[in-house]
Each structure stands twice: as C-alpha cells, then as structure tokens.
C-alpha cells in the first residue's frame, strides 16, 4: 500500500520505455510531443485525468471528443489531463517483460498514478482494449476490486449510452456531452481529496452518482426473469437518481474546442483538422444512434465557424479542414459558410471538405465551392438503403431518379470518384432490396459516362452491416445473421460483375458479417455480457476493430460458455426481436427520447411510413426537448465572414 502511494508522483517512465521503443513498430506513436500537446507539472494540479481512446494511436489521436476534453481540462489551473492509447501487442509484450506499466504519451506517467481514467467509446469493439490497458496499468480490471489507490474509471462516448456490458469494469459512465460533465467530476474529486478522502472509494462514487449525467452501475441492481429478460433494475442506495439523464451543451459558440488541435508526427487516419459545425441531428434516420442520442440540433454560428477555422489553421498548418457534423449540408447557412470560407482562403492551397452527405444536388454545388482552393478528392454520398422501399423503412427517402441525377451531376462537374455508402441487414430487408444497389451503381456509371464524356469515372460502393443500437427505433429489431449478410453481399457482387464493361468501373468494399454480430452483442447486451468480454480478453482478444486481430470463433466460444449459465446465448442478444414491453438494459438511462415514441416510430418503419425533420416541420414529440429542457438552436444568423486581413499562409 505505501509503495503504491509513494509511486503516485507522476514520475516519467520514459527512461525505462525508451530502450523498448527501438524494438517495436512505429515507435513515434508512443513518444508524444505532438504539436499543441501539453505537459503540466504534476504537483500543480489537484485532479489528474488520463484520457484514453481505446484503439491504436493512429485512430485515437484525431478523435475530436478526446481532444476537446483534453483542452477543456487542461485550461483549468487545478486539473491536468494527459492522453493514453491502446498499445500494440509488440510493445505490450515488452512492457510486461520489463515491468513498464500503461503510460500516457504526454508526460509518460503511469496511468495508475492518475485520479481519473476517462475512456471514450466510439465503438463497442474497444471494450477488450480497455481491459488490456487496465491490466497493463496495474489497475484491477474489476471495479469492485479497486481501492482508493486506483483511478476512477469513467466511460464516455456514444457507447456509454448502454454501458451495461462493461458495468463490471468501469466505475461510472457519463451520458451525453462531456464538456461540462468533466468539470463537475473534477470538482467532486478535488473536494473529496481535499477533505482527506472521507468514506473511501464508495463515498467518492456515491458523490459522483449525484452529478448530473453520471451513472454509477454498482448502485443499481439488475434482476432477471425465467425467460432471461430483465425483470427489474433497482437502486441500491436512495441518494442516487432512479433515472440518469444525459448532458447537453447548449451554446456551441461558448465551447469553441479544440482551439489548438493536436497535430501528430505519426500518420493518422485523418490528415486534416475538423471544425464541428453543429451537434445533433433531427433527420430521424431510424438506424442512426448518433442522430437519436445527440438531439436537439445546436448550430455553431457562421462567425463561430470562421474563427475556429482561422485559429485552427494557424495553430496546426493543416491543408484541409473538415466541416464536421452528422449531416453537414443541413447547417442553416452552409451555402454561405462554404462560399465565404472558400473566398477567404483563395490562393492558399487550403481545402475544405464535408464528410459524407445526403444525396442532394445542392451538395455537389457545395463540394465544388469547398474544394476550390485545395485538392479535389472524392465525393461521398450516403443513400444507406438500396431500394426506395427500404429507404422509407429507415426514413432516408430519396428517389432512384434523384440519386442517379445527383451522382451524374458530380461526374459532370469533374469529380471522377464517387463513393456511395449503403447498409446491409436492415429490418425487413430482402435480397431484392440489396440487389437494387447493383442496378443503381450500373445506372450511375452509365449516366455518368454520358454526362461527363469520360470513360475513367469510378463509383465505389461501400457497404456496412447494420447493427441495431440502443435508444433508436430499431432497438427492438432482430439483427440479421452473419450468414444472411454474407449471402446478400455475395449475390450483390455477382450482380455488379455481371457486365464487366460497367462492373470494372465499380468498386465494392465490404466486410463479412461476423464482426457486426459481436458488435451487436456488445451494443444491446446487458451485464451478463461482461463475462464474455472478460473471457475473450483473457484468451488474448484485443484490437477487435482490426480484422487481423479479431477472432469470431473466440467470441462465439466464449459467449456459448459464459452465457449458458444464464439460459441465454449469442442469438438471444442479436437475432432475437424484442417485444414492446420488454425492459431493455438501458431503459434507466435517459437520452430524452420517449420510449413510446420510439416504439411508434418502429411500427411506422415496419409500415414504411416516413417522418419529416422537426427543424422545418412541426414537432413530432420525440420527447427530448421537454425532458431535457433544451431546444433547437439554428440560424440563419444573417452574419457573414469578412475577408481576413492576413491571408497567404
């Protein structure tokens, strides 16, 4: 015990790490020192945060959420935040052999020395990496085995809206926007430490459980009925809330983060900076968890966007800025934003880009405007569903004619690469729905060649397997089996290749259905699934998002053995359709969405009825605004961007 307390000095492990780095792949990812990174003196801070993205550095570094919290926390004089990422097996093996624990890349401090370990889960496939990091850190993997010397393990990110599968491993989960929640958590930890840690870890967690948006699983007991479904979730203390509501940041202009984005030396998955132009989405795509749990829409103003782009470019030297959101072309002033930013950066080789957009001819105009000054890469559209019928089911309506016309417009405007994103395995989907993707792609190429007069245009069809997610109308749906997905994708490939003269211009990208099944288990799982995760990790599972590390057989074997005692299995969690009144594992976690509305929307999906966006049509009572005390914040503001006085950088 005394040994552990004396090591919590934030001392750098770098001298012990350095000899190991000469022996591993891509050592640069472990040395830190990125542009705009910070290392604060350990003693100066009352509360120390280690922020983890539970995947490889190249994936984790560009993560906006982590970058935002890193800055927000480090701006507080009483807090210090450093980053840590999943360590590849080559270094992990050397660290175990040489007794070097999980470290932060900023100060190379031991993760176990920190007060809080915040872990951002963008995907459930990072769960085994959390266990690996805890174990490497020397922190007990089970929350109940930790004492005051271990950091408080806090989960965040979209997956934290159902943290039940990792309830045994995390101490708390934060629902919703983290900007203000991390400040509240810091205050609680600081006060508890200053008071001499009264009541130990239990008391600290009880205090945290009373922070708005913080869920502490250990204070809630789950019981199950004979059919395997949940019979009740009950509080074990009466001083914690019965339901935990999400956090919502209301004025994005007040939170212009990241102000100084991190720029790695190592290559990362996004070689650009990003500015979030709005948060939330009310398009109502029924498969989209992000669009459901981040409501309402909150726009950053055009001037707020302009100053973030300007400051970010100055701080980073990036050549490209992504205008980020769930559906960027929907910003109320996007046309003006695109034009005025392009004017500002005329002649500077600065590219602006939008992530994938809805299928809309206006978006081609936008893309033309945005790429005026920079490199013209590809354009991505996301029709998501192959047939008009399935697009009504998922509430992403676009006619086949409009789709072909839009993509053709892109080719006619000089874009030679267009990517179309679809999902496979959607509720009510048949083989015919998926085969229509081939018809579409063929028609797009045919019309595109005609309109552009070029033979070298290309269309890449990218397909993801659909995974039903909590807090969406599809949370009750039966997930398609891996066999169904694989069969449909095989059939689709044959259809695309039927005519080689067209087929050679079409690329098809997809993954097999197996990882999606495991993601499904982890997405809609309950606490019993924690046993499966632990078993898989103990048998060597990690980096499950990487095909070379993912083992479907290891997961299915672990699921079969660990779930048998509960009378449930992998299919029960994935391919089973839920009934209306079944208690879902996340029902006590409140995204603001009314469960009755979700059910009604699910029924409307089955009868192929659409629902309009509440930004432009009357409220359809999803429940979020009244429950959370929030409202839609959109423009137009009528403001505009003045030319910068100093350009040419």
């Amino acid at each position: 015990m005394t040994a552990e307390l004396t090591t919590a000095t934030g001392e750098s492990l770098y001298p012990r790490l350095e000899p190991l780095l000469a022996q591993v792949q891509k050592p640069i990812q472990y040395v830190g020192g990125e542009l705009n990174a910070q290392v604060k003196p350990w003693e100066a801070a009352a509360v120390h945060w280690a922020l983890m993205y539970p995947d490889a550095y190249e994936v984790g570094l560009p993560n906006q959420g982590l970058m935002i919290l890193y800055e927000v926390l480090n701006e507080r004089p009483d807090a210090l935040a450093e980053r840590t990422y999943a360590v590849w097996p080559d270094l992990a093996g050397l660290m175990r052999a040489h007794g070097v624990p999980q470290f932060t890349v900023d100060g190379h401090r031991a993760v176990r020395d920190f007060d809080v370990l915040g872990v951002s889960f963008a995907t459930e496939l990072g769960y085994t990496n959390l266990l690996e990091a805890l174990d490497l850190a020397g922190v007990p993997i089970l929350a109940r085995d930790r004492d005051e010397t271990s950091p408080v393990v806090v989960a965040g990110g979209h997956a934290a809206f159902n943290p039940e599968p990792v309830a045994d491993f995390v101490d708390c989960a934060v629902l919703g926007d983290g900007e203000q929640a991390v400040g509240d958590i810091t205050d609680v930890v600081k006060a508890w430490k200053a008071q001499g840690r009264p009541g130990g870890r239990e008391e600290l967690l009880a205090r945290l459980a009373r922070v708005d948006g913080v869920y502490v699983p250990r204070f809630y007991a789950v019981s199950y009925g004979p059919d395997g479904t949940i019979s009740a979730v009950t509080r074990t203390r009466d001083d914690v809330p019965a339901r935990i509501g999400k956090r919502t940041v209301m004025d994005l202009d007040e939170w212009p983060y990241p102000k100084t984005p991190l720029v790695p030396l190592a290559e990362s998955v996004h070689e650009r900076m990003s500015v979030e132009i709005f948060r939330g989405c009310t398009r109502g795509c029924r498969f989209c968890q992000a669009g459901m749990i981040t409501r309402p829409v909150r726009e950053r103003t055009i001037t707020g966007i302009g100053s973030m782009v300007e400051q970010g470019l100055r701080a980073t030297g990036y050549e490209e800025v992504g205008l980020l959101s769930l559906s960027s072309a929907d910003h109320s002033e996007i046309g003006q934003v695109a034009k005025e930013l392009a004017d500002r950066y005329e002649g500077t080789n600065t590219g602006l880009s939008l992530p994938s957009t809805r299928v809309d001819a206006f978006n081609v105009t936008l893309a033309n405007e945005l790429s005026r000054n920079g490199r013209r890469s590809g354009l991505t559209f996301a029709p998501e569903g192959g047939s008009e019928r399935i697009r009504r089911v998922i509430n992403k309506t676009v006619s086949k004619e409009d789709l072909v016309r839009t993509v053709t417009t892109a080719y006619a405007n000089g874009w030679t690469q267009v990517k179309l994103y679809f999902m496979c395995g959607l509720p009510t989907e048949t083989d015919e729905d998926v085969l229509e993707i081939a018809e579409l792609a063929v028609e797009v190429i045919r019309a595109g060649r005609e309109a552009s007069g070029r033979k070298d245009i290309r269309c890449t069809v990218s397909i993801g397997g659909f995974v039903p997610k909590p807090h969406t109308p599809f949370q009750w749906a039966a997930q398609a089996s891996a066999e169904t997905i694989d069969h449909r994708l095989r059939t689709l490939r044959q259809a695309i290749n039927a005519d080689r003269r067209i087929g050679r211009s079409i690329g098809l990208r997809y993954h097999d259905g197996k990882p999606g099944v495991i993601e499904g288990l982890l997405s809609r799982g309950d606490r019993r699934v924690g046993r499966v995760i632990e078993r898989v990790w103990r048998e060597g599972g990690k980096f499950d998002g990487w095909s070379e590390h993912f083992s479907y057989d290891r997961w299915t074997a672990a699921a079969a053995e660990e779930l048998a005692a509960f009378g449930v299995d992998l299919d029960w969690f994935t391919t089973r359709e839920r009934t209306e009144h079944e208690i879902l594992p996340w029902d006590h976690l409140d995204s603001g969405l009314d469960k009755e509305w979700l059910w009604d929307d699910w029924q409307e999906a089955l009868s192929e009825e659409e629902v309009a966006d509440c930004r432009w049509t009357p409220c359809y009572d999803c429940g979020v605004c009244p429950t959370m005390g929030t409202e839609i914040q959109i423009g137009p503001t009528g403001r505009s961007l003045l030319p910068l006085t100093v350009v040419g950088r």
Partner: protein
Amino acid sequence: MARQPEGPPPPPTVQKLRIRYAKRGRLRFASHRDLARALERALRRAGVPMAFSAGFSPHPKISYIGAAPTGAASEAEYLEIGLAERRDPEAVRAALDAALPEDVAVVECVEAAEGTGSLADRIDTSVWRVELPGVSAAELRPAVEAFLASEVVTVAKRTKNGLKDIDARVAVAAASAEEGAGCAILHVVVRQGTPAVRPDDVLAALAAVADLRPPSPPRAVREAQGRLDDTGTVADPLGPDRAARTPVPGEHAPV
C-alpha cells in the same frame, strides 16, 4: 491528353534554399515520412511562400536528400525547397525552426548558388556515432579491429522482401572505438549506396566477427553527411553555396 485545372499555372520557383536540420531526443523515433509531414506543416505555419507543383494535386516543392533510419538521431539531414517569392535564408531558418517541434532543429539555411551543382551530388557518405550502453571500450576495440581486418562480413538485413545477405564491410571507410560516459562509443564512416549499410548492419557485423552483443539497444546519431575525399575527410555539402555568396549586412528581414 491529361486534363489541366482551370486558371493560371502556379507561380514558378524563384529561389532555392538548402537546409540542414537535426532530429534529436524522442524524435529519433520519427520515420522519414513522419518528418516530411511535420516539415510541410511547419513550412505552412511559418508562412514560407512555397512554390507548388502544377496539376489537380499541387504539392509544395521539397526535395529530401537521404534520410536517417527510424530510431537513429541525426545532426545532419538535408533538404531543398523551392520558393515562389524570395526570402532571406536566415529568416526562413529561424521561422521554420520556431514552427517545428523542439526536437527538430533547423541548423542552417543557405541559398542554392547557381552553377555549383546539385545537393544530392555532394553527399555520398555518412559519419555515425553509436553509443553502446553496457559495453566498454575495451570490449568494443578488438571487435572493431577484427571487423576492419575482415575483407567481407556478411550479415542478414531485413528488407521488404524478407531477409537478405549483404556485405557490411565494403561500405565502411573508417571505424574506431572510444570510451564514453558509462558506455563505449563507436565512430564509423559509411559510404552510402545500395544496399544501404546502416549502423544496425555494422553492429550485426561486430556480433558476427567478435560476438559483441550489447545488452541494451544502441543509440546512433548521424553526425555529418557529405562527399568523402581521398584524405578521408567528409566535406560540408553546403560549403559551395556558402562560399559563392557574401552576406550583405542588415539584410535579415523577417519572413
């Protein structure tokens, strides 16, 4: 015929600058690609008016000459950049140095003198200093002597196509041992060529001829690059550019 973007072609190169930089400390773990990315971004942050290539994907005009391997530090890396507007070389040096991470230092920047030939032609040799923690000079010295006395020392080198046998001896122009602070220091002068012989290969050769196996990973620093002359001296590759030009006092304007 290849399509061309609309609008006028990018402005031409009006000035070429030759730069010597160092990678030190933690950034010895940076690969050449990592450093190239960092340099391009730093040039933008520093406001250096780069010339760009034409076409749909314009690239700033930068030529890299060689590159120290990942894991090795260097005091003498070289590159050449093309500018669309003239700038004072020293001001560019200072601005770029300030824009780069602490462990990358821009040591010198000179204007390429006309008619003095290319920079790449002035570099054919590397001077390395390799620290060997846990090894004494008394152990290192006989190993170096045995190596130098050999005509050929074959070592297995890891390449893209698997392991390949190369001769590590033929490229070595000179080698010596010295006692450092708590470790032996190997000085070695290596001719650049194909296949490249790097400090790792020389160490593998010492293991092969004298069974010298350092207990922990050695630390290599490239101290100089240049042309090796008959006297065994490595000439400064920026020398001809520096000699061709007398600095004008008070010329150092900001970038």
